[in-house]
């Protein structure tokens, strides 16, 4: 359960203040599938970063699973990110010198899990995302779709309750993008909350709930009645 109340995020650019998030009120229930759309600069990424605890609002309340986030310490925030949140980025953000398997393993290492258990989990993930053949390849040796599969495997390896995807198909061609979306939706079917920022109307329409943003405000918030 994500509950944002009167959230503001203001960036100071020289003597100009950019209101990236302007009095945002938003509730997302566990297991929802939400798409966020809107023109460039409307605050989509900022919203996602605040939900994902990477950024802090300048004012307002944020409760995640009934826990008030706003006054947690840096280390507590890191722990929640580790355990409850999985990020998927447009540019994949894989570490180039690590193999696919090692990239997927990273969150487990950060959590302090013993190596034997990590191995089992990583092998399962490689299998689930059909990456066994690519386990020991570095990102440079992978296709865009494979890279995003590695990134999704990494985002889900800790079995988070929320997946935040910021234009996950932005760097992929249409068909591969659709495949990646299917993978993310499969996670949603297993109960994970899925929030996807996209520019693609068609992809955005697949979500059960669509949020439209402009100038840091939520303009539209509609449920898809096909579901």
């Amino acid at each position: 359960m994500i509950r944002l109340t009167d959230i503001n995020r203001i960036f100071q650019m020289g003597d100009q203040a950019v209101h990236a998030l302007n009095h945002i009120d938003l509730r997302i229930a566990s297991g929802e599938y939400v798409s966020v759309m809107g023109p460039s600069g409307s605050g989509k990424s900022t919203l996602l970063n605040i939900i994902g605890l990477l950024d802090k609002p300048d004012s307002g309340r944020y409760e995640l699973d009934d826990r008030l986030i706003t006054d947690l310490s840096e280390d507590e925030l890191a722990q929640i990110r580790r355990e409850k949140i999985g990020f998927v980025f447009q540019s994949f953000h894989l570490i180039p010198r690590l193999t696919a398997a090692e990239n997927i393993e990273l969150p487990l290492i950060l959590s302090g899990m013993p190596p034997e258990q990590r191995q089992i989990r990583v092998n399962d993930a490689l299998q689930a995302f059909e990456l066994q053949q690519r386990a020991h390849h570095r990102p440079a040796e992978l296709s865009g779709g494979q890279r995003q599969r590695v990134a999704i495997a990494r985002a889900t390896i800790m079995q988070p309750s929320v997946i935040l995807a910021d234009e996950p198909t932005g760097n992929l061609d249409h068909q591969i993008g659709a495949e990646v979306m299917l993978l993310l939706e499969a996670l949603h079917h297993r109960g994970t909350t899925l929030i996807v920022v996209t520019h693609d109307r068609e992809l955005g329409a697949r979500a059960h709930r669509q949020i439209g943003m402009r100038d840091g405000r939520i303009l539209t918030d509609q449920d898809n009645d096909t579901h």
Partner: protein
Amino acid sequence: MTLIDTLQTSFKTVVSYRIRSLLIILAMALGVAAVVILTAIGDGARNYVINQFSSIGTNLLVVLPGRAETSGSFLGAVLGQTPRDLTLKDAQLIGRLPYVRRYAPLNVGEAELSAANRLREVTVLGSNANLIPIRHMKLAQGSFMAPGTENNAQIVLGAKIAREFFPHTQAIGQRVRLGDSRFLVSGVLTAQGETMGFNTDEIVIIPIDFAQTLFNTTSLFRILIEAKNHSDIEPAKRAILATLKQSHDGEEDTTVITQDAILATFDKILQALTLAVAGIAAISLIVAGILVMNVMLIAINQRTAEIGLLKAIGATSGDIRRLFFAEAVWLSLVGAVLGFLLGQFGSLLLRLTFPQLPAWAPAWASVAGILVALATGVLASLFPANRAARLDAVKALGKK
């Protein structure tokens, strides 16, 4: 993140940035190796000089005519005037002192040695039978001023002289001419080579009376004295000075140098030199430390997006600080150990190339070299690691 995982992850990073890591490790290693090798040379030189100086005698005191202008400075005495000569009588008086094991009066000069159709200029020492044991010389054959023969015209030849003059025959028993006098060869010295710039292989030794006649003098050049024990050196010195003052009508016109004091001075000077050299070498380690800092800062700049990603997947600031810190520690540690090995290997090569030089790096230098390398590496990485830990996650992720 566990400590082992931190060490392992950072080690992998070090390995994957191969060239960068090799360069830093090399810089560290050269610094440590420089400390080890330079102190090995310094300490080797110190030991070399001390060994040489010890080898010329044990518990040795030397009396020379003339008074040092300022007490303790033997240089002044060496260069100073000679107000009153040392005599054989002085030497005999010293010989009777309780702390003195034995003494040898000494005259030195040049004379022409001829025998078996050969002729050459040689350095002549005039002394008594004690000279040979006091100066740690050895007779390969024969004797010098053996009891009952003290008044004979006898001569001991240095090893090289003996070989030159009598390559195919026994030297002992041969007649030689030194200046205008004839001598019977009574002994040959064991070859010793050069010690403290003085080669005993190219000298001849004759009894002091003959030397004084040969050089037409009644005064002595030096008196060499061996104290009974190490603890007798200082009392012997005082007693000698008192005796000479008395015999010289109350004039303090002689100087006594102890081997011990000179040894201590040499030791101090050369130790200071070794330290100075080690210090200079250590500066290269500081340079290596600055290099580590620079490289870590560049690494953080290059890996900014990666730091953002680590934060996004749940790394704490501490995790990131420790990862970068561990990376620098690895670089410094491997560099330091490699440098130590390199330094030991270099010292070994030095010892093999110059067998006279005991080029062993003192333990303190090796330990200090490694510790300074680690400390500079660690200190130099604190600032970059902190900077990485404090990066704003969103901004870091946005950087490409």
